[in-house]
């Protein structure tokens, strides 16, 4: 890459740089991984990873970007791209009401953030999903933003980094959300055609239509430890086959042994892994 880094970071910096957030109810929480009682502040200072058992908590797109990007280098694009309600979808709630609630809760317009940023001085294009926004589901806007990010990566010969965290396609856009799987995959075919680099990072959880499209199409596929990754959800599988699922089934380590994940990477090492792959790929 020809771009000049704003400044260099060490990985140690990342650990102390996490933005201070208002602590929600209670200062303490019990770790679902090891049952240890953790001081929330400790967790925030350790990239939201349990210092006792390395349980990786789910984090927002903003926190993820902050952890991966050189400080102050992320420039978001398409933040104003939103979906509509093409089906006038109604279940027990109206889709626009669900969207409104998600926007209020997350302070963001959609379930993915895209933009340019630097990783250890290398310019990249990021697409980072946010599970808090309707379960990170992919509707028209998510598909559109990822396709645009992919097209930008191809046009500008920049590495594309997609961090997935999603329950799958967004039901309330039905067939149109299904089509986003084809749209994003087709965009990635074009990126591949021009020799572009795509690093797919799978985090907890990555399932359904997101896994069965762009998430599984990385030239390099990294996964955080113990992340749930699969096509069908474990509950659906259990109902279908009427038997218990094996220990560790559909977790990152399972996918690595079955040949579908290149490397399981601890959150604290993700930044250096990404920058190293970019280096090997000569981008």
């Amino acid at each position, binding site marked *: 890459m020809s771009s000049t880094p704003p400044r260099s970071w060490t990985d140690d910096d990342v650990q102390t740089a996490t933005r201070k957030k208002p602590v929600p109810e209670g200062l303490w929480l019990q770790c679902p991984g090891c049952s240890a009682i953790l001081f929330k502040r400790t967790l925030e200072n350790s990239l939201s990873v349990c210092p006792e058992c390395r349980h990786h908590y789910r984090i927002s797109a903003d926190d993820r970007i902050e952890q991966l990007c050189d400080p102050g280098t992320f420039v978001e694009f398409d*933040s*104003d*791209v*939103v*979906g*509509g309600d*093409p*089906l006038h*979808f*109604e*279940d*027990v709630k109206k889709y626009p009401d669900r969207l409104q609630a998600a926007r209020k809760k997350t302070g963001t317009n959609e379930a993915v953030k895209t933009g340019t940023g630097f990783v250890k001085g290398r310019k990249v294009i990021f697409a980072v999903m946010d599970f808090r926004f309707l379960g990170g589901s992919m*509707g*028209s*806007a998510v*598909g*559109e933003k990822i*396709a645009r990010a992919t097209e930008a990566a191809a046009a500008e010969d920049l590495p594309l980094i997609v961090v997935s965290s999603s329950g799958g*396609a*967004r*039901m309330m*856009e*039905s*067939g*149109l*959300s*299904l*089509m*986003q*799987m*084809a*749209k994003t*995959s*087709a*965009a*990635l*075919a*074009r990126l*591949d*055609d021009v020799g572009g680099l795509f690093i797919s990072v799978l985090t907890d959880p990555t399932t359904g*239509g997101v896994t*069965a*499209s762009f*998430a*599984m*199409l990385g030239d390099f596929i990294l996964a955080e430890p113990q992340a749930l990754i*699969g*096509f*069908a959800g474990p509950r*659906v*599988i259990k109902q*279908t*086959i009427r038997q218990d*699922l*094996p220990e560790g*089934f*559909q977790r990152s380590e399972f996918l690595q042994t*079955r*040949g*579908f994940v290149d490397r399981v990477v601890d959150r604290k090492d993700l930044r250096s892994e990404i920058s190293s792959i970019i280096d090997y790929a000569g981008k």
Partner: protein
Amino acid sequence: MGTSAGIALPFEAPVADLEDQIRQLEARPDAADWQSDIDTLTASRDAMLAKLYGNLEPWDMVKVARHPNRPQTADYINAFCRDFRELHGDRRYGDDPAIITGLGRIGPYKVLVVGHQKGRTTEERIKCHFGCAHPEGYRKALAKMKLAAKYGLPVVTLIDTPGAYPGIGPEERGQAEAIAVNLLEMSRLATPIVSVVIGEGGSGGALGIGVADRVDMMQYAWYSVISPEGCAAILWKEANEETNSNAAKSLKLTAADNLELGIVDGVVEEPLGGAHRDPALAASKLERHIIDRLESVTRLNPKTLVEQRYERFRRLGEVHELASGG
């Protein structure tokens, strides 16, 4: 006619009564004497079918799409694909009977046919996992499609699946990866591809052989991101007749809905009362349609096709730009 005898869908009850009466008359030794009654009953049966099928609820259409006598990929191949040579196996793991692939001739065209197969008998249905394919099915489809591109053969895919199989084996062997790779590779496959949803178009398992230059649906087929039952179980917290029906309506899964959304390019009309009542007529309508589609797509060179295929899927979806700042 009459092949659906004995398997009437709930909303067809009035028709079933008439059909019983017609059958009883036809079975009489002196049936010839009853011909005018048979004709009258047949006419009112047809009128009733036209009325019922003209006002089907989406959930009823899903039931038609799943009718046990509805023609499947193998039936259509038998009906209009000449000199069919099935090709087995993905050269990696196995041969998934839930996806049939093979070479054949449709009209004046030599083609590769790829289609989901549900199976008819109980034994076949179990073998085919009720049309729910495994990763090896998707990988077989892609391997043969690449061959088709190599030898300049157009691809015809027939979609008919409730969804890809949710099980331990498929997950271990990369169900998601297999489908994802198909989406990517089909989008740039340098040969014409035409797809028709002939029955059920269930989610990624359907799309996994559905990235095509022309995508059409049979009149009573459904195509959606999730089945009505799956949607009802999640959003209504319970799948029952009422919530399934609501979900089917909300999902906009009918052929007419998908046409309006731009997800499919056309609708193949079915015989009166659905393809299961007259499979031969359904097959000839589908054959005609596929030949028409092949006629138009084989005129374009592969580069243009791939370009247009990209644009076709690229523009699907509804997005807006908020006023600055959002």
